[in-house]
């Protein structure tokens, strides 16, 4: 270790100028070092050290910068906001507390075991087991280095779940992406990768890390919009299971600080601050970490064995900010005041070419930090060595109220924990939302009824609807043998499933238990462009509807939020964010589904060559999970046999704002779909119960592309025809023409297949919910739609519809030979 660089050698300008520096000089130092601190935060650091009458060390400023980063502290979500909506003005003290957290607190659901406090939200699974779920974003790394960024994104969220409570066994990975279309041919600024390259590399990264870790990647989605061309979004999630006795962690004075897993190197310096800043073409690839899945798998195997033997008291992952964040967070849990003393030179290094401050904030992958009671150390060491995992003792936790880090006896960091965790100044931001004026009257859609067939095929082939088989097949979505409702469904295992259902029998190890869980997602940035509040409501509605369709019990659902937004300093952007957060709160309260975890990624902006800032469309991902009390009652979306009744639940209104029909027809100004919370909850809960009672054969929710798109998907997935009579569709007065009825994207609607024997019991179970028998399944492999005037409006061959739906991604991305398979499914009809 003598060959190590000294701090002065690598820190560049010595930070000696802090106490005397003028604000401008501080700002210059900040820009040079990449701390991403704002003027107020720089001043707070200066004031703190002026009071101490000493200069801060480089490592101290680094620690504060990482801990105070938007990535770690969520400053925008927790700082005051002056929110103006129309004529009313409201002062929000903390957006997070007053929206998402408030909903959870009000709902007081008994299944919430640990929410908003740990690395993941933890809910009850059954009497013995708990379920941990976390969804992260990894946007900026994936923009500059998509394969490595996606890999470490997966690795990071898996470690979040390993570091939740005393550690959970990952049983499901989820992935949701937002990209520009892979066939995008417009201009791209320098330094921006083509979206096709980004997509294929991100999928490969998720695939290689998830597959090698042996975690099924079995639920997710992709949204395409050219506005993501500068700044793609990559959401990765992990669900894990842990014994309920392992939900709470603790740290006691005297516990050893033990780091285990990978060694520490210079990769991933400043990841937390990097991801909190705007992207530009100088974005550094060295800010992206380097992942190694097998190291993490070994760490996982060792950790779970040590957990089951009770060899540590607390654990957290080394993610953003590296040791500085992990040790800092764990230190805060120790005793009344918290504290830790670290001898950093005891860490295991990949290289000797590393400065002490770099070692402290490095985000090298596959590392976890443990609080190990002294008497357990030798057993701990034995378990980790047996799995071939290295570990080292970095120091001790204590109750001193201070975070102290030394390097061969020299003090590197000596920070007051109170200042570190609560010293970040809260700055009030401005936010404004103006409700758009109602659009002018548009021409009647009835005149375009002749285009319905073309519009249907266009919708099916649309990037936001088409088959995701190209992606899903590359993931090992059945490893662990628990994926009982798979992402691809139907006769030929290639239809679009709603929620995935996992039956973790091999992990839980209880024979005769059929309890499982479902995971569903909701996302629609197109609605968000019109009204972020409506978008938030529809995202929750969609995620829960997906769960309903697979047989989960949505009356016990939990939600996760992931906001990816643009520039929070722009009052209009922030206003949209506030409105989306309020939508999340109202939706959670309306459906009785608490939020258990969430994450926000702000500053998803790109400065172009002229210096103009572009924000991405405000994007909200809602992930939902709910128990499936008996996986044997789960259902899939494909029609099963001919001569069954087809029911439609929900009311169809003229809500085509942001819809696929608008994009097809070149219309604008439609009303964005809104959710009637009370009616939606009643419908979802009743249907969820009916499905779990075995009264429904197939279920699919109606989303982008409307009723006719959903019907087509159910029919071609099952190779069972369907006939639908528009006159019978329950509708509002404004849904008066066939085009509106077929393509409206009104929320909380479902199509269901019910056998004649079960019809009476089904109707009884659904009493009080708006629904109607709108048609039936037929032996002829076609989709038939009968118009309001009883004439046939559509008669489409299922093979052709399916081919249109399947062609898009393989054509854009290439998959040799897959067309042969399509030919097999699609021919002769």
């Amino acid at each position, binding site marked *: 270790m003598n060959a190590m660089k000294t701090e002065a050698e690598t820190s560049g300008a010595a930070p000696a100028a802090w106490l005397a520096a003028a604000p401008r000089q501080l700002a210059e130092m900040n820009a040079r070092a990449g701390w991403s601190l704002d003027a107020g935060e720089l001043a707070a650091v200066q004031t703190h050290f002026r009071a101490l009458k000493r200069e801060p060390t480089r490592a101290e400023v680094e620690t504060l910068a990482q801990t105070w980063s938007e990535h770690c502290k969520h400053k925008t979500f927790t700082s005051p906001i002056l929110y103006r909506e129309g004529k009313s003005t409201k002062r929000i003290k903390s957006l997070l507390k007053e929206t998402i957290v408030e909903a959870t607190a009000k709902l007081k659901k008994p299944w919430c075991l640990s929410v908003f406090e740990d690395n993941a939200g933890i809910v009850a699974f059954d009497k013995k087991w708990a379920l941990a779920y976390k969804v992260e974003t990894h946007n900026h790394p994936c923009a500059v280095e998509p394969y490595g960024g996606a890999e470490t994104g997966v690795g990071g969220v898996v470690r979040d779940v390993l570091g939740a409570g005393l550690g959970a066994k990952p049983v499901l990975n989820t992935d949701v992406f937002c990209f520009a279309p892979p066939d995008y041919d417009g201009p791209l600024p320098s330094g921006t990768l083509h979206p096709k390259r980004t997509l294929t590399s991100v999928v490969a990264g998720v*695939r*290689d890390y998830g*597959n*090698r*870790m*042996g975690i099924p990647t079995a639920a997710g989605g992709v949204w395409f919009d050219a506005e993501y061309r500068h700044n793609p979004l990559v959401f990765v999630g992990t669900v894990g299971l842990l014994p309920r006795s392992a939900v709470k962690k603790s740290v006691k004075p005297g516990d050893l600080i033990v780091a285990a897993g990978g060694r520490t190197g210079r990769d991933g310096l400043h990841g937390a601050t990097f991801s909190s800043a705007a992207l530009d073409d100088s974005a550094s690839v060295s800010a992206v970490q380097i992942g*190694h*899945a*097998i190291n993490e*798998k*070994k760490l996982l*195997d060792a950790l779970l064995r040590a957990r089951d033997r009770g060899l540590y008291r607390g654990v957290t992952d080394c993610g953003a900010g590296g040791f500085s964040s992990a040790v800092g967070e764990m230190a805060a849990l120790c005793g009344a005041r918290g504290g830790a003393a670290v001898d950093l030179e005891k860490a295991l290094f990949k290289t000797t070419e590393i400065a002490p401050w770099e070692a402290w904030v490095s985000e090298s992958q596959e590392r976890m930090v443990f609080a190990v009671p002294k008497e357990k150390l030798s057993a701990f060491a034995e378990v980790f060595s*047996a*799995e*071939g995992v290295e570990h080292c003792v970095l120091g001790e936790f204590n109750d001193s109220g201070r975070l102290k880090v030394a390097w061969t006896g020299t003090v590197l960091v000596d920070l007051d924990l109170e200042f570190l965790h609560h010293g970040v100044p809260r700055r009030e931001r401005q936010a404004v939302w103006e409700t758009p004026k109602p659009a002018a009257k548009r021409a009647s859609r009835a005149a375009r009824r002749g285009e319905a067939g073309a519009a249907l095929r266009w919708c099916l082939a649309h990037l936001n609807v088409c088959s995701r088989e190209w992606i*899903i*097949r*590359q*993931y*090992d*979505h*059945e*490893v*662990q*043998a*628990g994926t*009982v*409702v*798979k992402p*691809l*469904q139907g*006769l030929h*295992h290639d239809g679009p499933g709603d929620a995935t259902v996992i*039956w973790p*029998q*091999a*992990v839980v*190890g209880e*024979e005769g238990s059929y309890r499982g869980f479902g995971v569903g997602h909701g996302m629609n940035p197109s609605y968000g462009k019109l009204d972020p509040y409506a978008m938030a409501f529809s995202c929750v509605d969609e995620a829960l509807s997906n769960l309903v369709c697979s047989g989960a019990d949505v009356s016990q659902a939990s939600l996760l939020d992931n906001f990816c937004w643009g520039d929070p300093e722009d009052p209009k952007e922030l206003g949209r964010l506030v409105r989306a957060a309020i939508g999340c709160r109202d939706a959670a309260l309306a459906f009785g589904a608490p939020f258990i975890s969430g994450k926000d990624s702000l500053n998803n902006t790109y400065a172009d060559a002229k210096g103009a800032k572009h924000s991405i469309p405000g994007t909200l991902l809602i992930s939902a999970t709910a128990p499936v009390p008996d*996986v*044997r009652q*789960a*259902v*899939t979306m*494909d029609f*099963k046999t001919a001569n069954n009744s087809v029911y439609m639940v929900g009311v169809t209104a003229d809500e085509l704002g942001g819809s696929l029909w608008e994009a097809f027809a070149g219309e604008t100004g439609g009303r964005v779909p809104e959710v009637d919370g009370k009616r939606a909850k009643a419908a979802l809960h009743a249907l969820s119960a009916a499905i779990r009672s075995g009264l429904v054969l*197939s279920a699919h929710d109606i989303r982008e592309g409307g009723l006719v798109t959903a019907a087509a998907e159910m029919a071609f997935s*099952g190779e069972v025809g369907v006939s639908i009579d528009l006159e019978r569709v329950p509708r509002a007065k404004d849904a008066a023409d066939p085009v509106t009825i077929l393509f409206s994207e009104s929320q909380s609607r479902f199509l269901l297949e019910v056998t004649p024997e079960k019809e009476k019991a089904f109707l009884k179970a659904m009493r009080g919910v708006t629904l109607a028998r709108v048609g039936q399944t037929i032996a002829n492999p076609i989709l038939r739609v009968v118009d309001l005037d009883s004439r046939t409006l559509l008669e489409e061959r299922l093979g052709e519809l399916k081919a249109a739906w399947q062609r898009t991604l393989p054509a854009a991305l290439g*998959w*040799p*030979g*897959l067309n*042969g*398979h399509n030919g097999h499914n699609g021919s002769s009809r």
Partner: protein
Amino acid sequence: MKKPKVLILRTAGTNCDLETASAFKMAGGEPDLRHVRELVSGKTKLFDYGIVAIPGGFSYGDDVGAGRILANEIRGQLRELRGFIRSGRPVIGICNGFQVLVKAGILPHTPAGEQVASLSFNDSNRFEARWVRLRINLQSQSLFVKGLPEMIELPVAHGEGKFVVKSPKVLEMLKKTRSILMQYVNEEGKFAGYPYNPNGSLFNIAAVTNPEGNCLGLMPHPERYVTRWHHPNWTRQTFCKEGVGLELFRNAVNHALN
């Protein structure tokens, strides 16, 4: 009745150990997960077990080729596995486990025990997970497929599953000794190319046995189809009572009992 002990061999990157153990447990065995280091060090004795399973995964990350490093460990430090097979006890290698058995020169069986085949990159050049149809060679001596129908379905999930041989003689030898246990076919039981043959395997080979029938290597995952709820069409089917994969484990357990 005493349950036969099943050694589930683990190492860094083993992924399918829990579900393989669960399958053996359902089949009446007593699975025991052991790290290869414990066997190499002598802490765990191979001959204390009635059955050995090498489960799927990415042993050592599949660096330098799928299964290669674990295969070398077996070849060099765990030689008694060959004696274990000679003793007639059941050994099964699934997916990565099959790759290990092939690269260790255990399958296909040759008198000298050299490697004469390999599992190479899929023709599609990427990892793929899908369900396949398989035709079982009922003329083979394999103890694992007793009582199974000729046509079954199982899932595959791999990037390196294309079975290739060193020379045409190897294929002739495999045919002659009835060692080709399963082949990829279509709904009609015929060879039909991609995606029915998901990786481009020579002669559509999905599984290989030793001539004596107690050592099986296969790319498909029988442990992922041990109940009817594992099948992708279980919500459509009313006829299948249980997963056909369970039969393979049951046959191994029953054999070990006798």
